[in-house]
């Protein structure tokens, strides 16, 4: 039995698609059961017909629609809505799709501020007043998919681990239930935790955490947060290590920055992290800034431009 799959990418970097490719030889197994009917990165199906003379975006019907990237312009909305119409199940693939991802950091600014900066860098010539009508206008912010259409399956990660991509695709293809890790990154983190103790401030990540010897195993190293450096592990959904379990950043002895988004779909990583730190008596003003605690989950209006002061 084969499953018809349509794949799309919106405001994305293609890392999620590469994660699919990174399933390695399992990709060939997936290709045996998945019948791709639309996928701009892999195949040549066109929105407006193969001869480019259609008027409306058309995507073939499919059982599963995998969408990566957030929603940033009007064409993204159009493509996403067409995917929703044509696919029985919509999978939000990757943190951009589930929570806005890194591009949603732009939600701290208005689109005008963003355009103004991008087209005024020191190397940029003065641009024309405005773009053609054929260039899709930007929305006011970068949105997660579920702010625009109903989403059936959330597969966060920047990018999602190939193991989970494989699991999800297999589950969808065979109709079996999908069990993704539901706790936080700490669940899979082997470092030693003893409590936050007398920690009063946090240091920036300007030096590596302490460990005794280059080959000291990770389960002998003290928790990086307990060493006094911000680690977003406690407020970030587990799973980045795939079936090998160890969180990916920790493998490099680098603190987590939250790429799987909040533990619960509607969580707030900044609020939860600052709260947990403050509860432990850690001075949160020792963090250089806090916007980037939401660097993966700025959609859902978590980040927005500061309100303009009323003109006097």
């Amino acid at each position, binding site marked *: 039995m084969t499953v018809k799959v349509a794949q799309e990418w919106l405001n994305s970097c293609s890392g999620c698609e590469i994660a699919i490719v990174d399933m390695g030889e399992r990709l*060939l197994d997936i290709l045996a059961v998945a019948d791709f009917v639309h996928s701009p990165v892999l195949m040549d199906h066109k929105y407006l017909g193969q001869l480019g003379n259609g008027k409306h975006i058309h995507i073939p019907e499919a059982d599963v629609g995998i969408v990566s990237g957030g929603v940033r312009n009007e064409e993204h909305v159009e493509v996403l809505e067409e995917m929703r119409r044509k696919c029985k199940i919509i999978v939000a693939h990757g943190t951009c799709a589930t929570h806005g991802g890194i591009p949603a950091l732009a939600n701290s600014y208005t689109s005008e501020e963003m355009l103004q*900066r991008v087209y005024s860098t020191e190397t940029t010539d003065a641009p024309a007043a405005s773009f053609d009508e054929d260039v899709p206008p930007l929305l006011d912010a970068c949105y997660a998919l579920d702010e625009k259409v109903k989403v059936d399956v959330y597969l966060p990660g920047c990018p999602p681990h190939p193991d989970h991509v494989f699991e999800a695709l297999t589950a969808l293809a065979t109709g079996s239930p999908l069990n993704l890790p539901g706790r936080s990154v700490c669940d899979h983190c082997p470092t030693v935790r003893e409590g936050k103790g007398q920690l009063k401030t946090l240091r920036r990540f300007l030096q590596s955490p302490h460990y005794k010897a280059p080959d000291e195993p990770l389960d002998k190293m003290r928790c990086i947060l307990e060493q006094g450096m911000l680690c977003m592990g406690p407020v970030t959904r587990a799973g980045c290590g795939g079936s090998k379990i160890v969180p990916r950043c920790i493998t490099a002895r680098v603190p987590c920055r939250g790429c799987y988004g909040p533990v619960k779909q509607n969580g707030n990583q900044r609020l939860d992290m600052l709260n947990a730190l403050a509860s432990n008596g850690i001075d949160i003003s020792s963090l250089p800034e806090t916007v980037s605690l939401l660097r993966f989950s700025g959609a859902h209006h978590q980040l927005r431009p500061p309100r303009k002061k009323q003109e006097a």
Partner: protein
Amino acid sequence: MGQIINIHPITRIEGHASIAIQLDDQGEVRESKVRILSLRGFEKFVEGKPAEELPRIVNRICGICPWQHHLASNKAVDRCFGVTPPPAGRKLRELMQAISHSEDKILHFYFLAAPDFVMGPDSDYSVRNIIGVAKANPDLAKRVVRMRQMAKMILETFTGKAIHPHAGVPGGFSKPLLEEDRKDFLAKMREMLDFALFTIEFAKTEVFPKYLDAVKTLGVIKTGFIGTVDGDGALNLYDGMTRLMKPDGTFQDFDPQQYDRYLGEHVEPYSYGKFPYARCWGEGFSLDLEAPRGIYRANTLARINVADKMATPRAQAELEEFREKFGRPAQFTLLHHWARLIEEVYACERAIQLLEDPEITDSNVRAVVEPRAGRGVGCLEAPRGTLIHDYSTDQNGMITRANLIVGTTHNLGPINMTVNQAARSLIKGGAVDEAALNKIEMAVRAYDP
């Protein structure tokens, strides 16, 4: 007004673009535009963030070459903070760069470009993809997937993350390389080199000869080139002087810290993407096919053209053969593929050189970093071209300004010219077929945008 043909989206590329071809009443191509449809605004939203976090933010610019963004950003932050990584830290960074190049070129050649050559540009769109290739040639497909995965797994087992990495850190690298890993990686990269040599032989015997006519006609334009070379004029993917070559083959080298004195970016109302051009040539910007102004190309063909030689023996032999056939600078657009495979050999050889260097397992991999006010440009060669990250920081080491010129964007002008040339040669009297449109895309895919 005549018909408009929209190739939307351009497929099997990394990104979001479409082509609009405007025909006149006689069905001849009047003009063509390649639109970049998305804008994310990294240059704006990195402002106010701690500089040491940037390598972990800007790597999200591209999921195919995250290592290059990551490392360029680290180099820029190092400069802002005035720190030099210890030798082992620097070498580990370059090793990651070389391995990720080697993996990327396999991805591009086999997954994105090969369907056009293996299945043929006239085949049906439903089979003209990696799935079709896998079915037509299952043994090769398995080997391709396995080899690419092997390189990728070196990055992943060592640093935890192959896509959107975090192991490069301001001041160096986050962890040292252990001797047992070095041996393991060395064996794997030797295997990778064998596969690279197999691939270029396979391409030279099975693929390119069939398409030599297409190479000489499809999307052919004449431009300058940009790339990075070391002190000997040999190609260097990680560090060195930027070399800007005019279409006639004359060139000048400059320190990438001063890129803004040489390069400019032009803006067109039909695309969110900016068009870099050689401002220093003083001739302005024009995409006119007969008389382009300021236009140069980046990416594999550009690097092979600007380099006097290759720093490793197998790659040097391949370069000599290539140059004998096509001269210097070679202008045929489809030669990007060939150049890519030469670079693939180089990347594998370079990784092996680094892994054979005993210093690479030194445990001192990160220098102490102190935030401070400064400016720094981090420049290296991404698979798709010269990548420039330019930051300024305040006393607290927070980003106050960022300017990014990404590998692919150098080629936006040339891609427009290529499409224009291809469309004019393939669409006559309003006769359009799928094969013609795909050939236009094939020309785009050479740039691997």
